[in-house]
């Protein structure tokens, strides 16, 4: 049985440092998890633009690949992959999809894992805010409380909620493939998210798509407070480094 770290195409291609950080966290918690070569795309981005038959063929291909590698467990670091693998794979494949899929945040938030991580912010007390990505809050098994459990467990870190949070969070405007074609959506909506970042010193997100949009809009608007990927933040805490320093 193989336990797979599912990096996701966007992170793998664009955010290698984050991948390293995610791998570090996962390996710390369970050394049996591994990285494999040529992991196929889950297909999430094609969901609304592919026909059902095309999607089924793709999903079957991916599942056969999983079977060929004897995969029993997956931890995804991408919110989109988590949503897609847990919602649509069982829809297309039924009983034939037997893999236990967790998002990195869910995995970290497990009691024994949190205890093992024993996270402490060695610097000054820090207030942060967390942006709920649609892919996590809308998932079949929503990931909403877990990031809060993790952040609240960190000594010297305090979560300051955005006005719109959990199920009512503002979408960054990048989802559904919109970012690649109509960036104007995130121009407005990602800015709105930053506008709600009042007492938080940084904005955390666990979705690489949200991060991409938020990062661009932050730069465009010369916003001082940083947007940080959840796993990057956690690793800095683990290493005793100031999480706000790039």
């Amino acid at each position, binding site marked *: 049985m193989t336990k797979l770290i599912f990096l996701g195409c966007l992170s793998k291609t664009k955010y290698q440092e984050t991948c390293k950080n995610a791998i570090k966290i996962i390996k710390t918690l369970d050394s049996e998890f591994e990285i494999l070569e040529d992991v196929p*795309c889950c297909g999430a981005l094609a969901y*609304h633009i592919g026909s059902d038959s095309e999607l089924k063929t793709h999903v079957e291909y991916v599942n056969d690949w999983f079977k060929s590698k004897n995969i029993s467990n997956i931890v995804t670091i991408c919110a989109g992959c988590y949503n897609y693998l847990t919602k649509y794979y069982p829809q297309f494949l039924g009983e034939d999809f037997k893999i236990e899929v967790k998002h990195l945040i869910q995995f970290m938030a497990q009691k024994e894992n949190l205890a093992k991580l024993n996270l402490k912010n060695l610097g000054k007390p820090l207030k942060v805010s967390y942006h709920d990505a649609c892919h996590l809050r*809308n998932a079949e098994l929503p990931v909403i409380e877990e990031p809060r459990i993790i952040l609240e467990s960190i000594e010297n870190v305090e979560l300051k909620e955005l006005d719109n949070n959990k199920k009512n969070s503002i979408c960054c405007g990048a*989802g559904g493939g919109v970012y*690649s074609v109509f960036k104007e959506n995130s121009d407005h909506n990602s800015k709105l998210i930053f506008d709600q970042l009042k007492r938080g010193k940084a904005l955390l997100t666990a979705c690489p798509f949200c991060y991409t949009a938020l990062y661009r809009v932050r730069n465009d608007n010369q916003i001082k407070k940083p947007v940080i990927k959840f796993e990057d933040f956690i690793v800095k805490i683990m290493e005793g480094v100031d999480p706000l320093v790039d």
Partner: protein
Amino acid sequence: MTEKGKELFDKVKENINILQTEGTLEKQFGDFWKLACTIKTRQHDLQYLYDDSSREFVDKYRETLIKMREDFVNHMDDYVEKCINIMRKKNFTVYYAKTNEEAQKIFMEELGDTKTIYKSKSNQAKDIGIIDILKTNNIKIKETDLGDVLVQLFKYELPSFQVGPGAHFTEEEIAAKIKEVYDVDLEPKAHAIVDFFRNTYRKELLNDIKVSLTSANAISAEDGTIVLGENEGNISLITRATEKHIVVCGITKIVPNILDAVLITKLQSRINNVSYNYISLISGPSNTSDIQGTSVQGMYGAKEVVVILVDDWRTKAAKKNLFYKEFLKCIGCKSCIFPCTASRAFGNIFASKYGLGGIAIIRDYIHNGIEAAVEDGLFLCTSCENCYHWCPVSINLGEILRKMKKEASEKGLAPPYLDQYKEKIFKEKNPFK
């Protein structure tokens, strides 16, 4: 991507450019709408006059509502039949129109020689094509909801918000318009503008109506009562001080009983934070039996109440289990529009002639097909499903829109890049390679 796909994509891109150009009506509306959505999305979670917030109110009744609407969709024929039977017994004139075209024909026949019609907001009338047919036949349409009166005054033809059309006009603009059209000097203040219409238009509404048109917030199948909510009093006036009151709506406005109908109306008011200061329960035409017990129709109120219940796409969607079947549960509260990511960013270019947002685009799809929906900005939707989370009957509009995107893609109407992603995912197993 087909030629048509390219044409529609260019059109949406052009709309976005217009939306971002200073001085355009689209930009003016877009700026207003961004603000309105931001305030409203938060306000929904605040308490507003009541002990509970509107979201808590919705959550309290969510299960009841879902059950009520699912029961209706599963037994649509029975409810429609029951409703029509009781309405006829109560002296309503009732029609069941199979199609929009049939409804339009009936409507024109009922209108007879009348050349002017006074109407309430009635989004359903737009959906059923009544407004179009009135225009075609040169019937003078007199709006009575102040928002619509302003839209008409400004000859504003772009889509506006279904609940508050005209809310984006400033006091100065309205005062200037009134000066231009009526040559009346007004202080550019809301109360002065309201006084102006109260003093001039109210008299006309009380004296000159032959035929009025409304939709219904809900209709009770058990006793055939039509429920209409409003805050201005325009519906009260035009449904009473008229010879004939015509109600046009889809059969999906029917609910099992009067308590359900009132609950839905109350919910529509709470969820939008609008005050329905008047709720009318209309159970038939005006009537008196004061002379020797003889029942005579048409005392002070409407002499005749005509109800045109329209099926069109509805039974077909239920029976054939079409992918937008869920949409039959919609109670028309419009609460899906404020929290919509695309609506906030794109105002009235993520819209159709039926209004703003995903619901208006779905209506356009149902009536005019997938190309119309793509032109309305279908691909601006991020699938964030905020609409679904806010919907009091849990309709997953996001999923319906996704299915529409699929259909568009199959017909070569998806924007470029998305098509390329698809190819890369299926062939190279990585969209970013």
